[in-house]
């Protein structure tokens, strides 16, 4: 009978996986990810790939918003930078896909850091508005810089191959996307065991106090923007190579909002939460569409109102989560675990 998890050594406290159950769960999850593509059909593979890309993007945003406390509404714009850089490099300059993705990540990190400069003077609300401006400015540049981005026309990205198989094949892309999602998660979890990660968290909790303790606010805030944008750019570049087409409509302010919703519903400041949130928000429209299909026999008008139902549900889910479980799915998951651990004396 245990009443909680208590560690008696620093090593145990700092460990990534603290209990046996956690180790078993991670192995099971790993196996599930390995086995899944052999049983899933194309529809489910596509969904899984979308979840993987969204997970990478959500982890990136969470580094900035959840861990460093800098609210960003510029996610869509930063993803556009990643996607367009990767797309242009492989379409116009013939770079191999992996090189284009790496360059795209660094380019996005640079742009992210540049738009992070106002964060030195601004915080909270004002920073949110400044990043909103970043979103609008980036998207405007994308749609008006015809010579490079092709303006409002779609940018066609040539299909690449990996080990002789097409990259945009759902089965092939699955391995790439999930491997990168896993690496991103691992890197991020470890980032917060270093001095950089701890500085980020200190800035989030109280930035002036952090500064008096010797944390260079400007440096670490920019670094947070850069690291966050690096992963966001990765997600954008993956979209470019998966879809083989880049259009500005995919990176509007709605995307920024969607990703914010992911990390809020999943849980701010949590890598696991980012995954939960990404999966939840990505799968929600699919579930609603399928429900609509089932109910169509009884309610024939449902087809025409489907887009509104999806949009409304999205808004409603955000509101309900914020009111009833502000710490998100991650907290729910912990509650469930606690319930079973403390059974039969859980309250």
């Amino acid at each position, binding site marked *: 009978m245990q009443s909680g998890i208590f560690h008696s050594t620093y090593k145990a406290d700092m460990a990534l996986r603290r209990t046996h159950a956690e180790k078993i769960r991670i192995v099971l999850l790993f196996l599930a990810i390995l086995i899944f593509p052999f049983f899933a059909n194309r529809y489910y593979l596509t969904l899984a790939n979308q979840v993987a890309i969204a997970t990478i993007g959500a982890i990136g945003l969470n580094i900035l918003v959840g861990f460093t406390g800098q*609210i960003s509404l510029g996610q869509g714009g930063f993803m556009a930078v990643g996607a367009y850089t990767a797309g242009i490099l492989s379409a116009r300059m013939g770079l191999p896909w992996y090189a284009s993705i790496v360059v795209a990540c660094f380019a996005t990190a640079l742009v992210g850091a540049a738009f992070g400069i*106002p964060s030195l003077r601004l915080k909270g609300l004002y920073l949110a508005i400044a990043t*909103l401006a970043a979103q*609008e*400015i980036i998207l405007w540049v994308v749609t008006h810089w015809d010579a490079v981005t092709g303006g409002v026309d779609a940018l066609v990205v040539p299909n690449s191959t990996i080990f002789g198989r097409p990259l945009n094949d759902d089965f092939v892309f699955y391995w790439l996307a999930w491997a990168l999602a896993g690496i991103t998660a691992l890197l991020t979890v470890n980032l917060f065991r270093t001095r950089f990660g701890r500085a980020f968290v200190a800035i989030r909790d109280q930035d002036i106090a952090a500064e008096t303790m010797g944390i260079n606010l400007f440096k670490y805030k920019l670094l947070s923007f850069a690291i966050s944008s690096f992963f966001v750019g990765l997600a954008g570049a993956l979209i470019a190579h998966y879809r083989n087409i880049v259009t500005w409509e995919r990176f509007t302010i709605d995307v920024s*909002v969607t990703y914010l919703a992911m990390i809020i519903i999943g849980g701010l400041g949590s890598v696991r939460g980012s995954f939960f949130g990404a999966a939840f928000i990505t799968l929600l429209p699919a579930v609603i569409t399928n429900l609509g299909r089932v109910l169509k026999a009884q309610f024939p008008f449902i087809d025409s109102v489907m887009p509104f139902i999806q949009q*409304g549900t999205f808004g409603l889910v955000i509101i309900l989560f914020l009111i009833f479980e502000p710490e998100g799915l991650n907290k729910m998951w912990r509650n469930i675990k606690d319930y079973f651990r403390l059974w039969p004396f859980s309250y």
Partner: protein
Amino acid sequence: MDLFIQLTLTGLTNGAILAMAALGFVLIYKSSDVINFAQGEFLLIGAYVIYAMVAQFGLAWPIGMLITILVAIALGVIVERLVLRPMIGEPIISVIMVTIGLSSLLRAIVSAIWGNQPKAFPSFIPSTPVRIFNATIGADRLWAIAIAIIMLGLFTFFFRYFKEGIAMRAVADDQQAALSMGISVKKIFAWAWSIAAISAAIGGALVANIVGVSGELSGFGLRVFPVVILGGLDSIPGAIVGGIIIGLLETYVGGYIGQGLNQVLPFIVLIIILMVRPYGLFGQEIIERV
């Protein structure tokens, strides 16, 4: 020169409409420290309700306007009670996100009822062209300027001489001190949201009269940000001046340079202002202590 006058007049009217949308925004921020991303949707709902009253139910437009204002009050109170009150004391990001969720929900409801097609609005203010110097401008646009000025006057009056207005300022300054003075903070929040919804509804009706009703109207929610940052988030004269400056800027750039630069320029201005003077032209500078 003719082009200049024309652009100035158009800019002034656009600015007046922006100012109307910004007014409600500032009001909510001033009294409850909440930034309302659903302000554009309030505008949208105002426009559609008056459209429904006048065009679909065939009411006379003064009655329609009255009903719209009542609906706006109800909307403001309901939103404040159900959505914003549980958010008191939550971090900023939660408050921002809840109003974003609200905007998504409201837009979905509006398009579920009225569809996505733009609709012609039965204009209640004639758009007969008026000649001023060598430029022509619709009378409805001049009305927009007039109404914005009237609203500004009313709001200034309200905040200076009305008990509720003074209480609202007290709440904005310090909620605890206001509470101990016997002011009901809850009631003040309800007031603020209703008034914001009313000003958005009137703004919506004016815009609808000029450009027609469509989902595009909610775009005003985003265009308001440069205005309020320029004027200062907590300043009512700031909202008006900021609205007019941004409106003029947009039309001048659109008229003389073009290339869609007018869409992005307000946001560039916004970033510059945030870097130089984050509290805006008329906003209150806040000194932060640990």
